[in-house]
């Protein structure tokens, strides 16, 4: 038995030994005679022989040893054995051979020699492997090898490797952090060139980059610290390997490129639940974008292998972008990069569901009428991004508002704080604001806007629809200033009213009404002027002034009238004060009655002389007669409106004017120590004879001297030269269109003195910064831009009837006794704000310019609950309309912005108009809106109230709140209604005002 066992074992030993030998022999054969690379080297030798030109090279080709080749680059940490098969990669004679023998195409090997860079730096794949599949990472059936991290990049994808060293394809700011080593913190400013630059050859990447810039990817994604926070950071997205992606829903090959491609085509299928919208990209675009993403690499190569910055950036820019040149980034580009994905490519706004653009609407295709987008699906999924490209929006939103919202974001909405979180610099935000402002309608040609040209009936309709909500049905005022005040209308010229309408008044509720055309503006002016009582007419008054027998006309009556109305400025007996002297013989003998009457009735726009149209003909005639009583010499001229074409040479006149007159009358006759001459109304009324007279003989009682040859003037002008001067002044009449806002070098006003006067006398109503309180805001540049010094002076001198504004100079109704100098000081002080706005010096919270007085917060709360809470949520906490109750929004939105938005609605969103006559959902009157705004404002913690509420009103508010909370048993209500100690007067204030007391 044992022997048999042993024999069996002998046999087993023999067989297994032979089998082992056979297997080893097979393995040895496989090892030494088979294998991809041996075959490749064999064909290479054959190709060498075929291409050999002489016998020697043929022999050497034959003798080439078969061995693996490798490129060892310790500084890059790579060993590439690709040349084991790709032997001909640097051999130009192999240019036409098939792979793997073919020489490398293109010029790239010139700058990237194989023995310095290897192969896998660009092409990827497994450089150490020599088997075809293992080396390439691709299997014969076209799928990737399992367990190969970096399959070879094929076709254009190889250009994605350029980004490992070259920065040109980076979105922006590449060079700085590559070469300065500044790291992530460095955030160089954007420049237009780097946004459009790309490396030569990488056409797909260039297109991808342009897509990123133009499609607003950075609205959600960050790149180097700039961009939104909704999506993935894209800075080094190219460094991700396929392990970083979820291929569960990817239909094609499991490569990074394919994942990105499908992700761009159908984002929600590849990444369920993503907020990434379907951009409707074509296959080509999606591929471009995918490849571009893959090219965003961290620059990790050693310095020895990085391109030298200058060599790299010259001559390699894309031909089509070469024209752009380096430079500051354009606002338009910034908008398309950061804003367009939400606000639409053209700024018309979009409606999107969370994670989904509306399937049936092209998000980019909103036309103009999209401003009235009605959100059909009122789910919390709907996000309406407001349109910016709409005059309604732009009229209400000031630059400050836009800048604040862009910089600080809009809490409660998806609007990011682009300044603080989105990485935009303040310069870039300014560029954006300017670009958005560029969508505003152009200002029409305004010169032809006059009240005379308008149709008051049309104006009435326009007024009811657009203005009545704020200014009251009869111009009595409400949110806006009262317009039907006689003194206001007397002092305010057409130009002032027109400009205020067209440009609005920033930081107040007055929007810029650029949507009115010239005709409509004229109609409105005509309607507004109707409130100004017009009793006198020039011809009638002049006719009466000549009669003696009329009972109503007498110098006595004129004196009474003069003393009541004119002495404030012209002084007792016309000696002059704020206004010019009247009682000189030179003046009186030179001017005809017509001149006096017309000046009174029309006023002189731009100066303090208001229009006295409400005086009757008899009154005007009486004043003329009274003024004539000062005249002792016969009139020198009776010429009236008989002006011939000027005989003089205006060109000669100009140099004469510059040499002789400009010192006092200003370079362009705008006035300095002497009165202004280029006033259109003055020039219309003044006759050539009067001009000639005054130039020749001077004006007695004033510094105006005689310039006539032989007179005692400073210089001596010939008659011809006087004519030349007259001709030049007439030219000013034709050239002058707008009204003169300010005297260039006021000799009177001292702003620092004015500031003290303002602090003592005006802050009570206008606020310490001119932000307005019970009185209107007067500190804002919009007002000062269109209100002339004369308007300010006249308003101060005369007050504004129908309002709390009283005359400040001595007079029967005056509340103050300011001197003329002091009035001028005040004007100068206000004027100083125009270029140096007061809010610049204080904390931004004060910019709110609040002037809405919280009279009745309880009423505001009720109005909010019934009109606003449905969309904006209880207490403005946001529902499907944006949240209002947060400091971010409340500090950006002025009261005026709130008022105007409530009144007019917000174009391009679901926010309707609520103001009277605005065809909205309800007709809210000014008081309603003020209460509402005051209630909304009461949420803000940052903005202190300028006023303390009267105790009884706060009591009402608290009582109402208490009642409300009891009734509804609302926990949030009751938490806010902490009733103060009973019976305490001090406690009977709102919490906010209580704080102010403290």
């Amino acid at each position, binding site marked *: 038995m044992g022997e048999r066992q042993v024999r069996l074992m002998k046999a087993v030993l023999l067989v297994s030994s032979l089998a082992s030998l056979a297997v080893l022999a097979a393995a040895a054969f496989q090892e030494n005679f088979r294998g991809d690379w041996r075959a490749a080297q064999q064909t290479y030798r054959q190709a060498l022989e075929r291409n050999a030109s002489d016998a020697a090279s043929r022999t050497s080709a034959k003798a080439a040893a078969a061995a693996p080749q490798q490129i060892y680059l310790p500084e890059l940490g790579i060993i590439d054995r690709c040349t084991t098969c790709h032997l001909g990669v640097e051999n130009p004679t192999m240019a036409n051979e098939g792979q793997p023998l073919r020489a490398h195409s293109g010029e790239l090997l010139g700058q990237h020699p194989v023995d310095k860079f290897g192969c896998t730096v660009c092409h990827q794949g497994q450089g150490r*492997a020599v088997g075809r599949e293992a080396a390439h990472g691709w299997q014969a059936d076209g799928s990737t090898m399992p367990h190969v991290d970096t399959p070879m990049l094929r076709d254009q994808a190889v250009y994605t490797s350029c980004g490992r060293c070259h920065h040109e394809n980076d979105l922006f700011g590449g060079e700085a952090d590559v070469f300065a080593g500044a790291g992530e913190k460095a955030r160089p400013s954007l420049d237009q060139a780097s946004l459009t630059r790309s490396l030569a050859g990488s056409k797909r990447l260039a297109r991808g980059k342009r897509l990123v810039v133009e499609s607003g990817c950075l609205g959600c994604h960050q790149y180097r610290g700039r961009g939104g926070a909704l999506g993935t950071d894209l800075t080094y997205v190219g460094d991700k390997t396929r392990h970083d992606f979820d291929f569960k829903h990817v239909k094609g090959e499991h490569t990074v490129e394919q994942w990105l491609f499908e992700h761009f085509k159908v984002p929600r299928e590849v990444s369920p639940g993503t907020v990434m919208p379907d951009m409707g990209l074509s296959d080509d675009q999606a591929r471009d974008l995918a490849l571009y993403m893959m090219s965003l690499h961290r620059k990790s190569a050693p310095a020895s292998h990085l391109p030298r910055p200058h060599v790299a950036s010259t001559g390699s820019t894309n031909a089509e972008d070469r024209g752009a040149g380096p430079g500051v980034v354009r606002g338009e580009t910034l908008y398309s990069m950061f804003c367009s994905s939400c606000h639409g490519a053209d700024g018309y706004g979009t409606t999107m569901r969370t994670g989904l653009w509306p399937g049936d609407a092209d998000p980019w295709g909103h036309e103009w009428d999209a401003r009235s987008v009605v959100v059909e699906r009122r789910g919390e999924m709907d996000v309406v991004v407001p349109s910016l490209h709409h005059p309604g929006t732009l009229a209400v939103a000031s630059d400050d508002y836009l800048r604040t919202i862009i910089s600080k974001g809009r809490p409660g909405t998806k609007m990011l704080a682009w300044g603080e979180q989105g990485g935009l610099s303040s310069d870039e935000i300014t560029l954006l604001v300017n670009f958005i402002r560029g969508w505003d309608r152009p200002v029409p040609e305004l010169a032809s806007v006059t009240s005379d040209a308008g149709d008051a009936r049309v104006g009435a309709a326009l007024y009811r629809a657009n203005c009545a909500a704020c200014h009251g049905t009869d111009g009595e005022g409400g949110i806006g200033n009262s317009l039907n005040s006689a003194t206001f209308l007397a002092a305010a010229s057409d130009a002032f009213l027109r400009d205020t309408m067209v440009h609005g008044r920033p930081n107040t509720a007055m929007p810029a009404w650029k949507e009115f055309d010239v005709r409509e503006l004229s109609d409105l002016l005509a309607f507004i002027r109707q409130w100004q009582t017009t009793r006198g007419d020039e011809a009638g008054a002049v006719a009466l002034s000549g009669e003696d027998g009329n009972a109503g006309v007498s110098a006595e009556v004129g004196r009474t009238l003069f003393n009541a109305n004119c002495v404030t400025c012209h002084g007792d007996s016309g000696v002059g004060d704020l206004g010019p002297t009247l009682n000189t013989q030179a003046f009186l003998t030179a001017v005809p009655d017509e001149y006096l009457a017309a000046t009174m009735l029309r006023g002189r726009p731009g100066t303090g002389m208001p229009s006295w149209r409400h005086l009757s003909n008899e009154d005007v005639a009486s004043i003329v007669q009274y003024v004539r009583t000062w005249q002792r010499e016969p009139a020198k001229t009776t010429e009236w409106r008989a002006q011939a074409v000027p005989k003089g040479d205006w060109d000669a006149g100009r140099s004469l004017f510059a040499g002789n007159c400009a010192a006092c009358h200003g370079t362009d006759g705008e006035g300095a120590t002497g009165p202004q001459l280029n006033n259109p109304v003055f020039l219309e009324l003044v006759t050539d004879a009067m001009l000639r007279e005054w130039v020749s003989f001077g004006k007695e009682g004033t510094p105006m001297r005689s310039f006539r040859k032989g007179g005692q003037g400073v210089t001596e002008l010939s008659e011809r030269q006087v004519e030349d001067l007259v001709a030049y002044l007439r030219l000013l009449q034709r050239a002058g269109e707008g009204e003169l806002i300010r005297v260039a070098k006021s000799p009177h006003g001292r702003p620092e003195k004015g500031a003290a006067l303002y602090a003592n006398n005006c802050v009570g109503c206008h606020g310490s910064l001119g932000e307005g309180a019970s009185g209107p805001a007067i500190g804002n540049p919009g007002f000062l831009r269109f209100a002339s010094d004369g308007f300010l002076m006249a308003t101060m001198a005369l007050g504004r009837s129908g309002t709390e504004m009283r005359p400040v100079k001595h007079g029967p109704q005056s509340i103050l006794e300011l001197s003329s100098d002091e009035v001028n000081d005040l004007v100068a002080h206000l004027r100083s704000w125009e270029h140096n706005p007061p809010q610049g010096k204080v904390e931004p919270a004060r910019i709110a310019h609040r002037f809405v007085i919280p009279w009745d917060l309880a009423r505001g709360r009720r109005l909010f609950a019934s009109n606003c809470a449905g969309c904006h949520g209880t207490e403005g906490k946001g529902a499907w309309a944006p949240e209002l109750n947060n400091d971010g929004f409340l500090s950006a939105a002025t009261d005026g912005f709130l008022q105007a938005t409530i009144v007019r609605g917000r174009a391009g969103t679901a926010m309707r108009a609520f103001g009277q006559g605005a065809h909205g959902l309800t007709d809210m009157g000014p008081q309603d809106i003020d209460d509402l705004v005051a209630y909304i404002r009461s949420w803000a913690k940052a903005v202190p109230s300028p006023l303390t509420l009267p105790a009884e009103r706060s009591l009402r508010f608290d009582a109402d709140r208490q009642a409300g909370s009891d009734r509804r048993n609302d926990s949030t209500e009751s938490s806010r209604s902490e009733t103060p100690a009973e019976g305490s007067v001090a406690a009977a204030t709102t919490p906010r005002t209580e704080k102010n007391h403290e």
Partner: protein
Amino acid sequence: MSQTGVQKPAGPDKPTQRSVGDPGAIGDFSRNLRTTPSEFRESLIRHGKPTSDRAKSQAVFTNFFLHILPTRTHLHAIKATTTLGLGVATFVLFVLLCVTGILLMVYYKPSVDQAYASMLDIMHVVPTGRLIRNVHRWAAHAMVACVMLHMARAFYTSAYKRPRQFNWVVGMSLFVLTLGLSFTGYLLPWDQLAYWAVTIGANIAQSPQELTDALGITSYFDPGRMQKELLLGAHYVGQEALIRFYVLHVMVLPLVMTILIGLHFWRIRKDGGLARPSHADAASIGEPVVSTSGDGKPSPLKTYGLMGVMRGTTPAVNREMRNTMPTWPNVMYVVAAASMITVLLMTVLGVLYDAPLTEMANPAVPENPAKAPWYFLGLQELVSYSAFMGGVGIPAIVVLGLALVPYLDREREDIGLWFSGRKGRRVALGSLVLSTAAVIGMLAFTVNYGWLRNWAATAEVPQIVITLFNPGTVFVALFAIWSIVVVKWTNSTRMGAIALFTCFLVGFVILTYFATVHRGPNWNFYWSQASWPVH
């Protein structure tokens, strides 16, 4: 013949005393030169051709490598069913692993930066590197399997009984060492598979923390963390872990292994060879073998050398002789055949199947599921119930229990018989059925209904309860109860041991299978890998 060289020690040194006809020193030199090959052979192998039994005995006895074998071997030991060649196969695999391992060491670089690259080099450009690595890999797996099978064979044939109790314990140590060698080698390729398997393994080492946490003493006494840090040299698998594993794998563990293998072999000799049943020496087994020398004369039947004093049964002269045969060359053929088959299998596997090499280790990309090497997957399954019990408690119980088997079961009947006869076979079969049902039942229950944590009513039970009462501990308790029942029924500790061992073996196999095939991402149940969600 063998005395020739010794008798003329000074001959060549004294040429002056030679006679004329004497060829002299030159002659000596030329003769020495001629006879050098035979002289060398004779000095190498001091006996003649092993034709006689004596020479055969000498061939074994005088050979350094063979002298651990007896000069004559019992016929029972040569029977294929006695050992199934598993011990030899295991040893051959160890030798094969040493040889291929040394070759791999030439190219392998134990650094996290270069380890994976050197694997690529070995796989792609080192001549025969791929085959060597494949053989090394498959042999490692095969060795773990063979060790286990060898242990099962030894158990079922009662080969652990007196006087072999301690050799069983040595065998247990070798088993643990084999696992250690395989596990330390697992990390070296530094690919994803290795990295995460070792991460899992290290976490298993850390599992005592579960108990210390439950007891609230972790901050004072944290053996889990100590174990893990000792193993990895850090809190994570990195360069420190790699170099530790490398040193253990190529130096420490093989050295200990070699010493223990020697001890193991030596013990077999000292304990009287392989265990054999009492009837193996009965006459029915076969006729006594009459050895003859090459020339037909009866040769000396046995040569006694100094073999030391053995405990237990000493070879009885006449009775044993007829059931033995000379070790040389008979056992040599058996051993060589078993070895060659092992080598053949490994070579074929190596040529046909590449050892796995996944992506380079990337701590940022966890594998899901991250699985330990297959022989630890049963443990990983248990760890998924309770880290402490799966990672430390149950393995400790099993290893300790196995080591104690020879001391708890001292019955002397039926040694060397598979399953100790028919009764044992029935007990083994019963245990097989019972434990299969129990383990599969528990797994099915756990997969379908979850365990305490998953139920609302018991979601808040303290950790210590989960640790002590989980599917794993439930099997173990069931197995223990079952074997006690068997001991009582059969009135035999051997039967109880068979029941317990069978249960553990079945548990190991089923859990390993289950965790290998049916556990997918997040350690969820899947029928097959095809139904895993794509990652």
